[in-house]
């Protein structure tokens, strides 16, 4: 992990009508981190990420990405962000390689570079041998992997994974988690949101817990544990930390997805 700040929120807020969804949050994410954003549904995680990707405009506050003010430099910033949405965003009637080609080309990559990027992205998610298959014929796990491949062809410095393992089998889930760590080792900074505590515990170097639009705690797993107990040998889980800090169980919000 480097010392350079790759993403910084300063007093960031978002209101929809009278409802405050993100409430004055401030946060710094360093280059090379795998940063976990943890919180129940409606905590404001996706809204925060949507503001990072300029899908939503903040009501107030400021976002700096790669040292640039987001509102003034969005085109430059977008070129270096890979957003993996929670929902599958792929064309079923296009082949795997065509999907990757389409979405990678949106970042201005052409010719040989584009071909290389397609092969590398598909190889990264283990779908190179399925490159000529239609996406509609893929299993749920394969579609999730293709969903990732479509967002990484332009080699982003910052990858944002918005609950990428929802509704898939454990094997595919483990594969995706391994690949996230792999991408981080190759130099990408990762922001990862999930309902699954053990995923966040397993891969994230730092974690922020969000509730009701606010960040209520930030730190490494051990730092978060120390917020609720002074016992250095404590086996307390992240879920218990969450419960103690928010007074709520995460699984109450996660519906049937929480495993």
């Amino acid at each position, binding site marked *: 992990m480097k010392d350079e700040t790759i993403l910084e929120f300063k007093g960031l807020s978002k209101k929809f009508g009278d409802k405050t969804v993100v409430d004055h949050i401030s946060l710094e994410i360093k280059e090379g981190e795998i940063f976990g954003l943890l919180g129940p549904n409606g905590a404001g995680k996706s809204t925060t990420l949507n503001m990072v*990707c*300029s*899908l939503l405009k903040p009501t107030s506050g400021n976002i700096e990405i790669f040292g640039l003010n987001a509102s003034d430099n*969005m*085109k*430059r910033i*977008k*070129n270096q*962000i890979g*957003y993996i*949405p929670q*929902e*599958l*965003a*792929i*064309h*079923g*009637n*296009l082949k795997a390689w*065509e999907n990757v*080609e*389409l*979405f990678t*080309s*949106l*970042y*201005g990559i*052409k010719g040989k570079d*584009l071909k290389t990027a397609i092969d590398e992205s598909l190889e990264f998610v283990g779908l190179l041998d399925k490159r000529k298959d239609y996406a509609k014929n893929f299993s749920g796990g394969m579609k999730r992997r293709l969903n990732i491949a*479509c*967002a990484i062809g332009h080699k982003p410095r910052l990858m944002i994974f918005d609950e990428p393992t929802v509704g898939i089998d454990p094997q595919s889930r483990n594969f995706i988690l391994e690949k996230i760590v792999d991408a981080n080792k190759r130099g990408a900074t990762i922001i990862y949101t999930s309902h699954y505590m053990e995923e966040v515990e397993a891969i994230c170097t730092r974690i922020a817990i969000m509730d009701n639009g606010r960040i209520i705690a930030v730190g490494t797993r051990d730092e978060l544990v120390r917020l609720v107990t002074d016992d250095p040998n404590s086996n307390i889980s992240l879920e218990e930390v969450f419960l103690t800090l928010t007074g709520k169980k995460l699984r109450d919000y996660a519906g049937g997805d929480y495993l």
Partner: protein
Amino acid sequence: MTLIKNNLKLLLRCKVLILIVIVMVMVTGLLSAVFKDLMTDSFELKECKVGYTFSSECKYEPLKSVIETVFEDNDIDLIYYPQADAEKLVGNGAADVFISINDEGCTVYSDKEYKNESGLVKMIAYSIISQSVGVQSGNFANEYEIAVDPMPDSELYYTIAYTVYFIWCAMIVLGVVISSERKNRIGLRYRCSPASSIKRYFGYFVPTSTVIILLIAVSVAICTPLYSISWNEPLLSFVILLLGCIASAAVGTVIFSLIKNVIVSIAVEYCLIMYFGFFGGAFASYMHASFADGLRETSPIYYMIRSIVELNTMGQSDYTATTLILLCAIIVVCIPLGMIAVKLRGER
């Protein structure tokens, strides 16, 4: 280019396109057969017996030989009746059309069945009378033919009409890409990317135009030999059809981009196309239209059908320039509108 290419692939992989071509060819055949009698009754000239007479001391009586010659040159045999009761002659079938010439002009009597023929006879008679001054001064051109505009047969008319109509209907093919994007939340990816709205606009417009052109080309290639269509002015006709395809895609892109719901977009397009088609001569031919000229002139389909029909029957059309200008204007207006609509949609 990659966006255009992949959206084109999405469109070409849609099996509905094959259905559209089949429907286009079948509807053309069906309507040309259904309206064949109507078109034939209106435009075919039957052989008929034409009688004529002059009123007593008619000033045009010296033109008798000229009149007979001119009618003969136009393949119409006249029977002269020195004194005749026109209504009686037509009533008992001695003459199918009868023309009574007097100092004020002429009166034409005919059976209902010979409406077209009586019109032609009247036209010839008036043309001769209008030149009577020239005859009296010895300048009358003895040999001249009356120009009667050739009329299209039902196959030609409905092949043209339905080719034009389906060009406009085909704008709905963009719905394939738009609905795939909405169903699969592809908009998220576009909005996260630095791709401009202009790039996205051409990602819709170019593939849609290309597919409409392909559909029409295939349909024309099938209909031409199938219905024995002869394109007398193929170049101009195809230029009009090509511009029509581009204009249709431009209009379709604006509508799909402005309206959020795909089904509502298709419904709006359907209403627009029905209006254009109804007043433009896609159902009943524009020659038989019973509504005001002002209404049909609001339809680009009318201009397209009329100019292509006239080009391929008369060899020229006064509507060609208007049609080309109108289609170019639609394209020029709709392209920037579409870009704005795509940008607005992205922001929404």
